[in-house]
């Protein structure tokens, strides 16, 4: 075994100079959110590698303050904004301005400003750069914002000063109803863009009091911003995709508000030929309870008759809500509901016919019906 020991001596210098990757946790700044904006009007006279295109805002939390301990820092969060030609140079720059090194291993929210979304090249480079180096995980939530992302993250939020943490808690909570926004992870986002070329990401916004709202969506096609979807359109999309959960539906039944709470919803898209043309039907199956209704003797809902009527009214309302998304997507001519993908999966031969024309008008003319089946399981403990 003498040789073995000799070899050990050979690698000893390696080991002694080692620990290349070791950094103490308290010597890292754990970045929780990343806000990417487009730099204002680059100076075109400079060469391309010196032209700043990104404006990235880092919210650097003070770990001590964050966990309620004493700390030398004044605020919970220090905001540093950089302007740089690439994300790597931006990190380089921010590290000259901070006491510790930066780590993105816990980044929870990637907030993209409006300007970035509208610049196809910049958007694509940004995503590529983030994923290539495994700098951020694929399970980071992506969010769009109208206006500047940097300003949004800098704004005071009375609930939680760290936006990334807010977003993490928001989407980690599985009990939360899914009504106006669809969570989007970076990995899934790029996958959808690779598969169909169309994807959405939720919008995050904040009002004057600093109350944050996550609703609506930005519609992206081929790495390019197309339109903002408002929250009703997103709800329609959620209906079509069968992801609605814990959402109240209000109808007018006998001049009274009746609230129906959706517990579970499923969706199936069927295709069939009708008069030589293909058309699709979106079948929605909804299960839920009636939760609010002022019943009186003549307005008793605890009988088959009333339930039937209510069901009908509910189905109409849900059809209307779902159709909002269908109408929107048709008017834009962009299939963000995944009808084309479903067709490719279920009717690949038919898809071959539509494939080339789909985004060039074929989708606009494609007939889509929405048909819902409502199931009232419970009316509460009152009659």
């Amino acid at each position, binding site marked *: 075994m003498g040789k073995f020991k000799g070899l050990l001596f050979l*690698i000893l210098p390696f080991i002694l100079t*080692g620990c290349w*990757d070791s950094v103490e946790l308290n010597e890292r700044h754990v970045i929780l959110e990343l806000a990417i904006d487009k730099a204002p009007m680059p100076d075109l006279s400079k060469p391309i590698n010196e032209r700043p295109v990104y404006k990235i805002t880092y919210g650097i939390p003070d770990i001590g303050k964050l966990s309620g301990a004493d700390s030398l820092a004044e605020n919970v969060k220090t905001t540093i904004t950089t302007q740089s030609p690439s994300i790597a140079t931006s990190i380089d720059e921010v590290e000259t301005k901070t006491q510790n090194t930066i780590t993105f291993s816990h980044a929870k929210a990637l907030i993209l400003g409006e300007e970035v979304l509208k610049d196809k090249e910049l958007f694509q480079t940004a995503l590529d750069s983030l994923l290539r180096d*495994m700098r951020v995980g694929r399970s980071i939530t992506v969010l769009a914002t109208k206006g500047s992302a940097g300003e949004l993250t800098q704004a005071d939020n009375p609930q939680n000063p760290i936006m990334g943490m807010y977003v993490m808690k928001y989407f980690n909570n599985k009990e939360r109803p899914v009504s106006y926004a669809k969570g989007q992870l970076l990995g899934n986002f790029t996958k959808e863009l*690779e598969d169909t070329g169309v994807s959405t990401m939720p919008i995050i916004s904040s009002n004057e009091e600093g109350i944050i709202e996550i609703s609506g969506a930005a519609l992206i096609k081929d790495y390019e911003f197309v339109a903002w979807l408002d929250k009703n359109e997103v709800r329609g999309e959620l209906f079509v995709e069968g992801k609605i959960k814990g959402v109240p539906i209000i109808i007018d039944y006998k001049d009274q508000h009746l609230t129906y709470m959706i517990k579970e919803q499923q969706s199936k898209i069927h295709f069939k030929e009708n008069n030589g043309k293909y058309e699709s039907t979106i079948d929605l199956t909804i299960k839920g309870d009636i939760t609010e209704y002022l019943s009186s003797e003549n307005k008793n809902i605890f009988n088959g008759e009333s339930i039937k009527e209510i069901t009908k009214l509910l189905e109409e309302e849900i059809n209307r809500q779902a159709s909002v998304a269908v109408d929107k997507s048709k008017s834009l001519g962009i299939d963000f509901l995944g009808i084309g993908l479903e067709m490719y*999966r279920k009717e690949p031969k038919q898809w071959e016919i539509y494939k080339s024309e789909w985004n060039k008008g074929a989708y606009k003319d494609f007939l889509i019906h929405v048909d819902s089946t409502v199931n009232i399981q419970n009316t509460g403990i009152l009659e």
Partner: protein
Amino acid sequence: MFSHNGKISVRQVEILLILQMFNTSILLLPRIAANHAGRNGYMLPIAALAFGFIYLFCITTLTNRFKGDTIVEFLPKIVAKPIAYLVLALFVVKIIITTGLEIRMFGEMVSQVMLPKTPIEVIILTMLLTTAYLVKSGIEATARMGEILLYFIFLPLVIVFALIVVKADYKQLLPLFETDLMSIGKGAFVISLSFMPIEFMLILAGLMKKQEKTRQAVLIALLAIAVIETIVVILTYVGIGANESKRQIWPVLTLMQSVQFPGSLIENQEILMMTSWVFSIYMYISSGIYFSSLMVSRALKVRRENIFILPVIPIIYFVSIFPESLIDAYKYYMSFQYSFGIWFLVPIPIVFILIAKIRKVGNING
């Protein structure tokens, strides 16, 4: 009592073969499959079994003819000694180069996921030395190690795969059967090269206790690995999509990245999943080192069989640091598999079977 004759049981051979085939190529597999057959790539491992059976047949026919002998002993019986030793030398060189490239790919992966700043030479060298510690104890210890590592490799994988299975969106596999047969065949051949470690049977068969069961052992290993490969490909496709698999260099790693553990017990669990790969590649490398040194020492008729283990290590090390970058390493790795992977699986065994038949050497009935 346990006899110390350097022989291992049928089950140990099966496990060794499974672990050897479960190497870096599995991590690349979904990408290769997607490139050849798109979203139907999951059919390729099963189709590749056809090729696998050919390899199995060629190699076991040759080894069954010479029961109790490894390639080092039976080759000189078939042809003249100079030719036999030339072929043996080629085989050793091939094993060394494959092992070197394998450990380079492994080092790149570790460097990417775990230790970005650590020099890759250190990663490779520490791995090689850890491997040397095992193989110096001989084939029985190696086989036992394989049995133990089986638990450590497949238990985490089963847990993660179970998570993916529950959450996955299987619609992504639709539509079925839309790839043409030609590309399936081509893809199946490429995938079947991941069965390359079967060639170790040329040596392992001589170290088995129940020689009559070589065919059964290889068959079971082949079936097991084909099933595992299919599962890996399917889950990668439903996890990250076939198109994304094409884009990623390590699609399986990306898959592990996108899995989310319930209750957020661990984040970024792809690092934890590296455990499985580190362990399985350890077994592959240990086989590479062991068999190459075993062949040299048996050919030179040295009494102590583990004497060439340490000299082999620097050679493998230099092979592994030869490629200048990941791109080079990947290129060498793939092209070496394509151009030299098949030689010891089919052509060379067939040639020697024919010569043996003509010269009527070995066990004719076998």
